[in-house]
């Protein structure tokens, strides 16, 4: 179990969105532009990092019977911190991400990592795992956000890329576009995997 492997597995091999299909609700909801994808990714990564750290720290004193409520309390604390900090320092981003920041609490990636990894491994590895998974989640959001913003708005990060004659495919930044995009991207990754297996 090398540290490098623990870090990189989140990007492709065990990518939370594309391989584990976790956290799909926020993925679908906030991937309509690169900017909100980045904001959501950063917030989730921060929460994941902190919760993995704390949970691996206290893993020996947490009784198995009440581990889930304790994990949730820890996660909810960090989410509230992110929410308050964002409202105070990045009000514009807070407005666009809106309801989805509090919902990080129930993002299954975070509880999933706490349960599957941080509760069993030491502090150092858990931090690396949290960072890797968080960045993997961010990358997945960015990929979807870039595709959707490019097609649905003709821009990336709010800067127009395509000429003014391009008529944006509005559906891509509406909810159905999220399902279409994630369906095709998931299909693509499965196709890659199948080809590799052959």
């Amino acid at each position, binding site marked *: 179990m090398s540290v490098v492997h623990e870090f990189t597995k989140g990007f492709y091999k065990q990518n939370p969105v594309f391989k584990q299909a976790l956290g799909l609700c926020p993925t679908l909801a906030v991937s309509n532009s690169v900017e909100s994808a980045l904001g959501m990714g950063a917030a989730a990564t921060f929460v994941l990092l902190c919760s993995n750290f704390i949970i691996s720290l206290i893993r020996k004193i947490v009784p198995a019977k009440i581990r889930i409520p304790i994990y949730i309390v820890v996660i909810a604390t960090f989410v509230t911190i992110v929410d308050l900090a964002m409202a105070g320092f990045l009000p514009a981003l807070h407005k666009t991400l809106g309801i989805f920041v509090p919902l990080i609490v129930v993002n299954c990636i975070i509880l999933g990592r706490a349960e599957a990894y941080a509760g069993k491994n030491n502090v150092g590895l858990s931090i690396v795992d949290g960072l890797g998974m968080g960045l993997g989640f961010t990358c997945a959001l960015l990929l979807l956000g870039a595709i959707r913003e490019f097609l649905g708005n003709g821009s990336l990060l709010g800067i127009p890329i395509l000429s003014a004659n391009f008529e944006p495919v*509005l559906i891509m930044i509406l909810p159905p576009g999220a399902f279409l995009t994630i369906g095709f991207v998931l299909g693509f990754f499965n196709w890659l995997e199948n080809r590799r297996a052959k």
Partner: protein
Amino acid sequence: MDKKYFVSSSPHVFANDSIPKIMYTVVLALVPAGIGAIYYFGPRALWIILIAIVSAVATEALLQKLMKRSLTAWDGSAILTGLLLAYNVAPSVPLWMPAVGSFFAIAVGKMVFGGLGYNPMNPALLGRAFLLASWPTHMTIFTDAVPRGGTVSGIDMMTNATPLNVLKSAQGILANPQQFTPEQTREAGEAIGKLYDSLDKLFMGQIGGCIGETSVILLLIGAAYLMYKRYIGWKVPFTFIGTVALLSWIFGGTEGLFTGNPIFHILSGGLILGAFYMATDMVTSPVTFRGRLYFGIGCGMITFVIRRIGGYPEGVSYSILLMNLLTPLLDRWTRPKVFGGRKKNE
């Protein structure tokens, strides 16, 4: 036909129909409406139809090649999808739109699920829904395509000039009279009166609307032929149209219950096109007797709800798409008892 000694499981029914035969017959039945569209809206309608068909067939051929399937792009189903898609767009759309719509209809509506027979929803309608969500301005503006001979007199100046659009905005004004000037309220009332007086134009097709949905008479000619050939049944279209008529008679008026105009609601929008040609699609509608009745009633109810209180003036396409998704359930609920089979509780 004398060498067909197949050994197969039941049902041992042999019909002389093949997929291409049925598909091309439906295409043929749609031709009169197409000719009517070209007459009313000019050669642009023809271009849109051709582009949609070419794009649909090309997409299907390309994807079948990529998926290493046998090439069946010429079995007529892709042509029918392209044709129906073209019938479902406004005559003034840019010419790239039918191409993109057909591509989406075939690629996402059909081939992704495994090709003809596996698609849960009507591909042409899915293509239309995609276009409507993506480029709503092109899909909902009908003023740039005034039919030959002018549209329904007196209401030409409204920018969204389909009869259902006019009805919706007029009813919107009448529902909240305090927000508008008395003059506007009066005009709204007059507009509704004019609409109800021009049922003959609605019947002939001299109104604004999507390419293939306007001419009721031409669509009915094709539908009668298909019914004669028994390629479409009576259950879905008649329950569909009947439900819309009943509901619009009861709830469709502005002066209380039972003041609506059912004939107007039957003749306007895409109801005839949808009920006879798209809700009856063999792949995406139920096969059982009761299933078909429920399917038609469901389509009619959703259509009317969208027309009366929804955000869009027309709801035929969404109603069919939604009921398509219910089709497997309807078939399951209405499965007939096996003859001689046991009762459930025995």
